[in-house]
């Protein structure tokens, strides 16, 4: 037999094209929708905008659509081209033909890939012709080629993965289900385990680098993020190489695959235990999580129920019948039950040492402590936050600071104090959320999250940390501020349109230094209320081409150097609220109860007291001046405080709070009784 006859058997090729051709046609239509159509839509959307849309890669324009289509169509293509192996009669007919299995598989593989890749490149050609012809979307031929190459690799990966699964599975429907589950499995399991870890592991922080790594392996999740992150060349190579390995394995498994296994759920018996463990584990975790979420208790019972259901399902699929109840079933259930129980228990058990692990100070290079790692710690790159990298401005290497954090950490780990019920109203009042991040000498990271009771045992530990300069540097992001050269917007909180920009570099530097000085002087940042007429300083500390990150600094009126500086520079009068701005001030008492706090707002209060003796309107200039000085633009509402509504002459208004402590005898006289 010639090479030609061996690999280019016309009959087989024609059959493959008949099987998969329609999928290829649909793929083409979907790709045109996902590629050029999206560009056209974007083009008309940007028609009335000043700047055209400049793409840095093609996936930017809702690239997920293309990826989603690729998933659906590549899986379908593989399943249809492998029908001949899954359907009993077809399998027997095809394997009685005088062709070797390599040839049958080669035909499926090559024709399937051709039918998937041609649509991509036709679409790329169409997109390529649009380059420069769209007025409001700017993209390049290179980006189009990059898009097509990426989709080619992605299609190759999904298609070969589905083929590989098909070699191990004997039913088309199950082939689809298992393929999708395997694509989702890494992030799915990760998601489930994280729920359990946060419930059972004391101090568990749920988004450390290792889970990021696992999520990265879940192709669906990773690829559906493509418009935000693009498709990197590194990922492309990984998918390509994995595809080649899968192709090799598929050829090998096909040689081993017995023809009579079509319509059997699992072709190779040694996959059966894996299947049982997988289904039982996922079901135990999933149904367990549902039970725990809805009932909040009996965790083990829910997991066992889930495990039993999962095991029964797995067994029914494997035996292809609902009548599985025999002695063998119960033995298997106990056996797999123990394995699955260990798989669930061990990662949460003391064996891992997760709960008690506290680094030795000498091993720590830098440290962060605060209440929100996720928000504070990621570094800013040109594209915005990068959760993989840490922001050095937030980390401290001060040995004393590290020492004191380790001391707190050790104490907490030793005591494992019970923060009480999370659903309790006071949970966040009696506890303090403390998250610690260590970067260790070996480059690894250690993240923990605790709810520490605000009790005497920990107060001294916490104060020592929180009153240190290092803490304040991170808390107010002062390191970055010291380096910042961004313009500073200063805004009057009463009158939004009354603001100025400090743009002179020397002035920016001076004002930044003043802010740093002010904030370092704060005694306890966690418990620092600003009283009086503050000003808001808005600074873009981190900025990139595609995002802006605004930091607010509320000036503490008690810190006089800033006021002095603003007056010197002549900005003061441009900013503050003056008596002349105001036509009148309306005062009402704030007698809301704890329950009403959330549902009754200031406007409701004024409505409620309108026309009653509790409402007082002040228009005396001296009294207005006094009220302006004593009331606060910012600050907590203490009990029995008053709410002020400033009526400006231009018709706008603003609310202020008058706290009990600020009431002078003069003011007391005019307050509603």
């Amino acid at each position: 037999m010639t090479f030609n006859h061996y690999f280019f058997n016309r009959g087989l090729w024609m059959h493959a094209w008949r099987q998969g051709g329609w999928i290829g046609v649909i793929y083409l239509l979907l790709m045109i929708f996902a590629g050029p159509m999206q560009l056209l839509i974007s083009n008309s959307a940007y028609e009335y905008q000043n700047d055209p849309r400049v793409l840095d890669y093609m996936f930017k324009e809702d690239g997920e659509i293309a990826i989603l289509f690729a998933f659906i169509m590549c899986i379908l293509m593989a399943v249809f081209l492998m029908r001949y192996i899954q359907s009993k009669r077809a399998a027997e007919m095809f394997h009685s033909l005088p062709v070797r299995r390599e040839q049958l598989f080669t035909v499926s593989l090559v024709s399937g890939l051709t039918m998937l890749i041609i649509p991509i490149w036709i679409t790329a050609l169409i997109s390529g012709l649009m380059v420069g012809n769209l007025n409001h979307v700017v993209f390049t031929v290179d980006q189009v080629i990059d898009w097509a190459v990426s989709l080619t690799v992605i299609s190759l990966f999904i298609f070969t993965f589905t083929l590989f699964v098909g070699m191990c599975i004997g039913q088309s429907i199950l082939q689809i289900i298992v393929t999708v589950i395997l694509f989702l499995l890494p992030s799915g399991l990760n998601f489930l385990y994280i729920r359990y870890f946060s419930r059972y592991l004391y101090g568990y922080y749920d988004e450390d680098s290792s889970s990021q790594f696992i999520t990265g392996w879940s192709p669906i999740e990773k690829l559906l993020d493509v418009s935000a992150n693009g498709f990197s060349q590194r990922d492309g190579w990984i998918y390509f190489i994995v595809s080649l390995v899968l192709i090799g394995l598929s050829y090998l498994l096909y040689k081993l695959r017995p023809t009579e296994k079509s319509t059997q759920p699992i072709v190779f018996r040694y996959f059966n235990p894996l299947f049982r463990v997988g289904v039982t584990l996922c079901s135990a975790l999933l149904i367990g999580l549902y039970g725990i979420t809805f009932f909040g208790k009996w965790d083990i019972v829910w997991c066992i129920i889930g495990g039993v259901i999962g095991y029964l399902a797995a067994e029914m699929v494997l035996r292809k019948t609902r009548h599985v109840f025999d002695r063998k079933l119960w033995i298997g259930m106990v056996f797999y039950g123990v394995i699955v129980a260990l798989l669930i228990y061990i990662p949460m058990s003391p064996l891992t040492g997760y709960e008690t692990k506290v680094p030795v100070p000498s091993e720590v290079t830098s440290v962060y402590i605060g209440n929100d790692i996720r928000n504070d710690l990621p570094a800013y790159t040109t594209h915005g936050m990068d959760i993989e990298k840490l922001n050095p401005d937030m980390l401290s290497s001060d040995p004393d600071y590290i020492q004191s954090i380790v001391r707190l950490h050790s104490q907490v780990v030793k005591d494992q104090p019970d923060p009480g019920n999370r659903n309790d109203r006071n949970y966040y009042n009696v506890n303090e959320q403390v998250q610690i991040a260590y970067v260790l000498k070996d480059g690894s990271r250690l993240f923990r999250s605790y709810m520490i009771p605000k009790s005497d045992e920990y107060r001294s530990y916490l104060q020592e940390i929180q009153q240190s300069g290092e803490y304040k540097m991170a808390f107010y992001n002062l390191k970055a501020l010291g380096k910042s050269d961004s313009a500073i917007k200063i805004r009057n909180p009463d009158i939004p349109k009354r603001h100025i920009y400090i743009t002179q570099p020397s002035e920016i530097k001076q004002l930044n230094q003043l802010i740093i000085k002010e904030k370092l002087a704060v005694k306890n940042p966690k418990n620092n209320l600003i009283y009086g007429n503050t000003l808001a300083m808005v600074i873009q500390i981190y900025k990139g081409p595609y995002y802006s990150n605004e930091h607010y600094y509320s000036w503490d009126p008690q810190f006089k150097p800033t006021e002095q500086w603003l007056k010197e520079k002549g900005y003061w009068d441009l900013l503050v609220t003056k008596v002349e701005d105001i036509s009148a001030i309306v005062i009402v008492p704030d007698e809301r109860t704890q329950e009403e706090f959330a549902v009754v707002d200031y406007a409701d209060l004024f409505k409620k007291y309108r026309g009653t003796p509790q409402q007082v309107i002040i228009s005396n200039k001296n009294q207005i001046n006094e009220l302006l000085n004593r009331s606060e633009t910012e600050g907590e509402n203490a009990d029995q405080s008053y709410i002020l509504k400033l009526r400006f002459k231009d018709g706008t208004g603003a609310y202020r709070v008058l706290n009990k402590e600020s009431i002078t005898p003069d003011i007391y006289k005019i307050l509603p009784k």
Partner: protein
Amino acid sequence: MIEIKQLTKIFEDERAVEDVSLTVHKGSIFGLLGSNGAGKTTLLKTMAGVYRADKGEVLLEGQPVYENPQSKQRMIFLADQPYFFAQTSIQQMAVFYRAIYPHWDEQRFQQMAQAFASIPLKRKLHRLSKGMQRQASLWLALSCKPDILILDEPIDGLDPVMRRQVKNLLFQEVADREMTVVISSHNLREIEDMCDHVGIMHQGRLLIEKELDDLKAASHKIQIAFRDPRHEQAISGLLDILHKEERGSVGTYIIKGTVERITEVVQTYQPYVFDVLPMTLEEIFIYEMGDAGYDVQPLLL
């Protein structure tokens, strides 16, 4: 010549075919008999290279069959339920087979259209009845000019006219090209007028394998009424009696040997009654197998 050597095929834990050895000579028509689940289909599929043997081997002219296109292009396996691609006509299927089987004979395909006039060339095959689908698959198979044709219960479901026609088509190929035919059935009557060799399978084993004519000549059913009961004793010493049944003074005997030999022996005792009765192939099997210790009656019907 197909040689099957100590073939064993195991499904999960069940031995579907166990230690079967069999030789089918070129140009012969071999009938494989057995009840449902006896292992016939498995044996045929392993012969055709659809299944891989767990033990033993299948050789065609000394060459293995499994995964060997050189051997497989000379044989065609027709399953009990024919398989065609979705939405295809016989003409489209012919295009496929033509590309697959190098010995495809287009002229033969066209000629046979007369024999299979009931199958329209362009009609979708899945719309045809079961019997017509079988005919279609046979049409395609014969057009491939196979040296070996393996048929799994092919005659069931054909009307007598078509049955005769199919038989004739097969006989033509056998006569013209010495095509070898292996054919299975769960009913002896279906194939006894076709085969020259038969084998019976039961529980995965091949119980017996014989040339049909030998089998027919080998034993006889005879009614005798002896003049003297002692004569019976005398002949049982001389002849190989497989089975005996007495009704009054008349006895029915199944005896191995040629009619001539039996007549000669029996006539010496000048019995009152001596008759050679017709014996069906089924009966022959039943007694042959009974001799080997099997109750074969349920296996054949």
